[in-house]
């Protein structure tokens, strides 16, 4: 792990226009290679945090640095995975994976090579020339992940990417995500509503409280990687799930 935090947030506040504070006095450090999940009740600003880190929204007050730089400057080393797959419906799967590379003016041959590699990584070669509407929800999300990873990001921001999927598909994609991370070792900030998912994936879970959004508690996950389906049956896993659920309930009761 690097000495400097990958993401540094100090006294961060965010408000839209004259509205109330969405986030207030947020302090958080994420080290390189960490997998950190953000969990909390609706409206606590989880997605806002990701958008601020991505430089998609300006910070109202406080400091936010990614690799010691302003988010807008560090953008080319990040990738964002949205709640919806956000695939371009007029492009085939392979063209969807290529699109961000094309925007970054990567030569055509290299685009194709990287996209094919990513497609193989998410095991979707057989739908290479399909259009998004021909894919299942899980497949679409895998294409979305492949597209994000095609940028070879150092920091991956995931905004509830599996929220709309059934539990089995979600579990399966959680395992795939960790498999992919073994090869690329990006730092991840992951927003979710699922305690089970957060515990399975993360090194640390940041539990947020709402009105205004703030950090309530940070829970360490003392489970080793690799994590598999068996991990979900282990006592250690169930204990952390119980602990986080307890913290979350106390936040929601506030």
């Amino acid at each position: 792990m690097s000495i400097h935090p990958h993401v540094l947030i100090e006294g961060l506040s965010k408000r839209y226009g004259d509205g109330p504070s969405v986030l207030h006095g947020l302090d958080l450090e994420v080290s390189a290679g960490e997998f950190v999940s953000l969990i909390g009740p609706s409206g606590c600003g989880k997605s806002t945090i990701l958008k601020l880190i991505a430089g998609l929204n300006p910070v109202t007050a406080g400091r936010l640095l990614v690799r010691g730089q302003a988010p807008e400057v560090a953008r080319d080393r990040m990738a964002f995975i949205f709640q919806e797959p956000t695939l371009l419906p007029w492009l085939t799967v392979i063209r969807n994976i290529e699109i961000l590379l094309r925007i970054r003016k990567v030569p055509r041959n290299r685009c194709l090579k990287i996209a094919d590699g990513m497609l193989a990584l998410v095991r979707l070669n057989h739908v290479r020339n399909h259009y998004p509407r021909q894919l299942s929800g899980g497949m679409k999300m895998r294409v979305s992940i492949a597209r994000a990873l095609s940028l070879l990001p150092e920091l991956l921001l995931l905004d509830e990417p599996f929220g709309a999927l059934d539990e089995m598909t979600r579990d399966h994609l959680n395992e795939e995500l960790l498999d992919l991370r073994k090869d690329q070792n990006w730092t991840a900030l992951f927003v979710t509503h699922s305690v089970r998912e957060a515990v399975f994936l993360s090194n640390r879970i940041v539990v947020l409280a709402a009105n205004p959004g703030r950090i309530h508690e940070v829970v360490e996950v003392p489970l080793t990687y690799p994590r598999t389906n068996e991990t979900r049956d282990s006592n250690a896993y169930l204990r952390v799930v119980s602990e986080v659920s307890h913290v979350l309930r106390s936040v929601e009761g506030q």
Partner: protein
Amino acid sequence: MKPREYWTCARWFLPVFSGGLIVLAWYAVRILGDIEPYVLPTPGEIIRAAVEERSVLFSAALTTLKGAVLGFLTAALVGFGLALVLAYSRSFRFALYPHVLVVQMFPVIVLAPIFVLWVGPGLPSVARIAFLISFFPVVANATQGLISTDANMVDLFRMANASRLQEMLLLRVPFALPFYLTGLRIAASLAMIGAIAGEFFAGSSAGGTGGLGFMVIIYFAQLKTAALFATGFVACLCGFLFVSTVLGLNWLLLRKWHDSFERTDR
């Protein structure tokens, strides 16, 4: 018969059947009401008039189509260009959109003589009137498509540091395509109406046959009511051809990926 087969047959049979009933009712009104042929000709008389006037109607239809196509194509190009400008910035929208609305609201009956004064009667005026009538749905639909692009997709492009041009060409334009094509569909039918209305007010037979709108004036003056009806049906036919061409383009461009074609694909 299985339900699917029934509906396939019904799709063809029912319009023919209801059409037959309308023709019967038409004859009944004419005969039972003892109406004069110059007031209400029968379908048979209309067909006879269409056959007798076929060469005139054919040339007139070609003239009208020329004006309509010219107006439509200009509307498709200018409308899309204007939509790009309107979508580019909110300031442009505030500055220009009210004027687009004014042009749309301006009555053709007033515009026609103005165009005749400016560019002379016949095709130049007719095409301009067809253009003015048909370009608003193109501008309105294309602008709507360009500005309502999925916010997450826009963020995705911003994350990749896409330029405004890349965002417009690779994201907003393809996203707006179905909207634009809907605008073109409406514009196609309006262009025909615009061309005929234009010929009615600014048409000319100089240098050849006048268009269908011009023929309406001639047949009306001669009290050839059956030929008037025949002109109307020829105009309908031209309109169908025109709109069908645009629908074909719609099918060609969207069938592979757009949800509106999902059922026919499966």
